[in-house]
């Protein structure tokens, strides 16, 4: 299976703290994408990191990619209650044009 798996499955933090979510995958990839999903809502694209990039920032988000370990992390700094959502990593399927999604990390930020 090529699917990404996020860790932890659930994370609960206080507002203002940082949240780190990890994703592992099994095959070689040329990019990895992170998405957010509020409960019962659509998937919002957060960031795409390419295999030749080690780190990427977007606002309060920082994504790292370690292709040797086949893992990625998403760090949300100074979390807010509005960051409460599920976060998924997604990797392109080898030789195909679709994404495999992981199981997601459910983040709860307590005000």
């Amino acid at each position: 299976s090529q699917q990404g798996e996020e860790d932890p499955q659930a994370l609960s933090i206080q507002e203002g703290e940082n949240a780190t979510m990890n994703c592992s995958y099994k095959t070689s990839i040329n990019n990895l994408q992170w998405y957010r999903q509020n409960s019962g809502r659509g998937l919002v694209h957060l960031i795409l990191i390419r295999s030749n990039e080690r780190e990427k920032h977007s606002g309060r988000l920082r994504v790292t990619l370690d292709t040797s370990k086949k893992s990625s992390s998403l760090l949300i700094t100074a979390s807010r209650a509005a960051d409460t959502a599920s976060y998924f990593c997604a990797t392109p399927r080898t030789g195909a044009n679709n994404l495999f999604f992981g199981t997601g990390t459910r983040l709860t930020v307590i005000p």
Partner: protein
Amino acid sequence: EPEVTQTPSHQVTQMGQEVILRCVPISNHLYFYWYRQILGQKVEFLVSFYNNEISEKSEIFDDQFSVERPDGSNFTLKIRSTKLEDSAMYFCASSFGQSNSGNTIYFGEGSWLTVV
């Protein structure tokens, strides 16, 4: 910011009925997709569509499913005879280029399908 729009947001249907879910992808995008998410489970790929034909499909996308781009703007998913296990959130998505070439796939808000 351009977005993928889906209708209806929620549909309840009797088992065995046909359902059509509609989507308007982002206007300059060339690749179109349907994914689904059964409640509490992973997001799963169903089908991708390019140049007016299906380019890839998963094992979930059996003969009960079909897709169409009837008029150059809408992209539809039809389920011919719904089953209880078709109950899920269905996401339409689009991208300018292929995801394995580093293109972002943008998703709509989803259509909740409940089969009773």
